[in-house]
């Protein structure tokens, strides 16, 4: 593999990891808990910014050309953990707006407005966020361990992202396959009935926002520490639609479906188009991608609203344990073996 190609592949893998983390966070809010979280980009952007400014040195570094909060040059992995904490904490104000018992489409619009306010503030508060320019020269975590070997570092970062995804998957899986996940789904299906069964809807909603928000912030942190820059214009609300499209295509409330959706929609689209010849005016391919995303949403909502991998049915074995994918595979194997034995006899 040429090193240029390796750079390309590693970057793609890292982007995929980032999108998968974010989509899991959004899926927890939207697919599992039924919250149409159009302000999701705010969690990601806040996490990214937090990680960036905590990893950066004081403002006086680099000639003091940029303004930001923080600047503590904190060692890895503190900026990432802090980003997740911030993501969870801003779930409270965002959740407060969503907590009003509004009609769901109305609530979605309210959250959309929140995300636009947030990005206007970030763009305009030069003192706090350095305005539209954003921040740059964010140091790469542990980069000094690799000397100047950028390619090895790329591969290291792929491994790191993969490890984070693995841990995140375990947590997401534990949440969605626990009694807590069941309570989220009950709230999604019928809020009034859940509340009549002693489920604290306010608490559950805030919790879903917080867990999803922490994941979104984590995705933002990993991205910003990799690319080294953060600008408000890169974190606009349409990005949330891309994630939403990935979830709907892949399968709502199915973590593996979400992965499939991410690989197809943002990654497949962005990278598929890379190999298209440059035709027409600049922006044509970009526009085509968005049109395709819109069409894909309509097509899936019409023909297969449950997505490629639908939500899995939770079955319980005789001993009261949840039947896992592995159990089902084993059962299928056993049945087919028995069938083979019988037919060979």
């Amino acid at each position: 593999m040429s090193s240029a190609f390796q750079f390309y592949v590693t970057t793609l893998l890292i982007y995929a990891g980032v999108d998968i983390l974010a989509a899991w966070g959004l899926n927890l809010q939207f697919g599992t808990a039924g919250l149409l979280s159009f302000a999701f980009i705010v969690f990601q952007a806040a996490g990214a910014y937090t990680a960036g400014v905590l990893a950066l040195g004081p403002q006086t570094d680099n000639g003091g050309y940029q303004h930001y909060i923080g600047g503590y040059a904190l060692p890895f992995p503190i900026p990432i953990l802090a980003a997740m904490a911030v993501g969870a904490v801003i779930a409270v104000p965002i959740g407060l707006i969503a907590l009003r018992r509004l009609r769901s489409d109305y609530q979605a619009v309210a959250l959309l407005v929140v995300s636009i306010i947030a990005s206007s503030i970030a763009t305009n508060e030069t003192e706090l966020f350095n305005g539209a320019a954003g921040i740059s020269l964010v140091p790469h975590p542990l980069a000094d361990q690799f000397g100047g070997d950028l390619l090895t570092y790329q591969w290291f970062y792929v491994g790191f992202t993969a490890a984070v995804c693995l841990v995140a998957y375990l947590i997401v899986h534990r949440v969605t396959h626990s009694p807590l996940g069941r309570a989220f789904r009950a709230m999604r299906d019928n809020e009034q009935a859940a509340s009549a069964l002693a489920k604290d809807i306010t608490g559950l909603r805030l919790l879903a926002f917080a867990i999803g928000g922490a994941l979104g912030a984590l995705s933002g942190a990993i991205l910003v520490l990799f690319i080294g820059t953060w600008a408000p214009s890169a974190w606009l609300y349409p990005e949330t639609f891309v994630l939403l499209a990935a979830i709907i295509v892949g399968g709502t409330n199915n973590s593996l479906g979400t992965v499939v959706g991410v690989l197809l929609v943002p990654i497949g689209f962005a990278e598929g188009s890379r190999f298209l010849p440059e035709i027409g005016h600049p922006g044509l391919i970009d526009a085509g991608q968005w049109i395709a995303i819109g069409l894909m949403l309509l097509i899936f909502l019409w023909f297969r609203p449950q997505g490629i991998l639908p939500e899995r049915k939770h079955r319980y074995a005789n001993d009261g344990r949840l039947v896992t994918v592995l159990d089902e595979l084993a059962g299928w194997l056993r049945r087919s073996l028995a069938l083979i034995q019988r037919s060979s006899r």
Partner: protein
Amino acid sequence: MAASLVGSNPKILSLNSVASATGLRTATVLQAQDIWRDFGGVIAVAGATINVPRGRITGLIGPNGAGKSTLVNIISGAIKPRSGVITFEGVDITAEAAHRIAHRGLVRTFQLSSEFGRLTVLENLLVAAPHQVGESLIGAVLGKRYWQNQEAALVHQARELLIRFGMSAKEEEYAENLSGGQRRLVEIMRALMAKPKLLLLDEPLAGVNPSLGQEILGYLEALRDDGLTMLMIEHDLAAVERVCNPVIVMAQGKVLAQGTLNDLRNQQEVLDAYFIG
């Protein structure tokens, strides 16, 4: 409990403290006193007072628009009264949120089926169980090892209920795919999983075929014999006659009379409420 009674009628205070101190339970589980509620210009409940005695199925009947469902919605905390006091097991719950009231063991079913459609029948039951350790974030993240024992016990309980209600075959069915009558059963089983001290049933036989209706009544009688207190709105008076005692008649947002259905039948004002309006 004593603290929340400060300021209320001293007589009631002493009675309740004696009862709680000696472990005795008062005969009345729930008291709703002088409840008022209007919607726009229409008064739905106009000073209704009811007492629900322990260990019985109390029937709540009355013509359409009498305010029965509104009263049940007020008792369960789904809507708030304009005035009036609701006491459950001696505690004032008038201002409490619906989920807090449910937490105290006052559990309701709904007139329109309100199953969790994309949960299986078994899951509908499991989700209702109170005090699940796996329902907190920490519990969930700690994983199966932390909550599996409780879960297995709940699955066992839920399956026993399914057997008792003849619904075992539907364990893995999504609730949204059930028939109307089966949804009713799921709702009642689900409420039972919540370990209610008082079960509010809002027209449990609505949309259920007669033979299943008889079956449901049988289940309710068995539950009563096990000591469960119930308050039931029902239109089918044959059903009320079979299982309810006492029966409360509401009309025009007020309580007209209380007694056995047979007594009530011979009271002119009850006849009038139904017959004349």
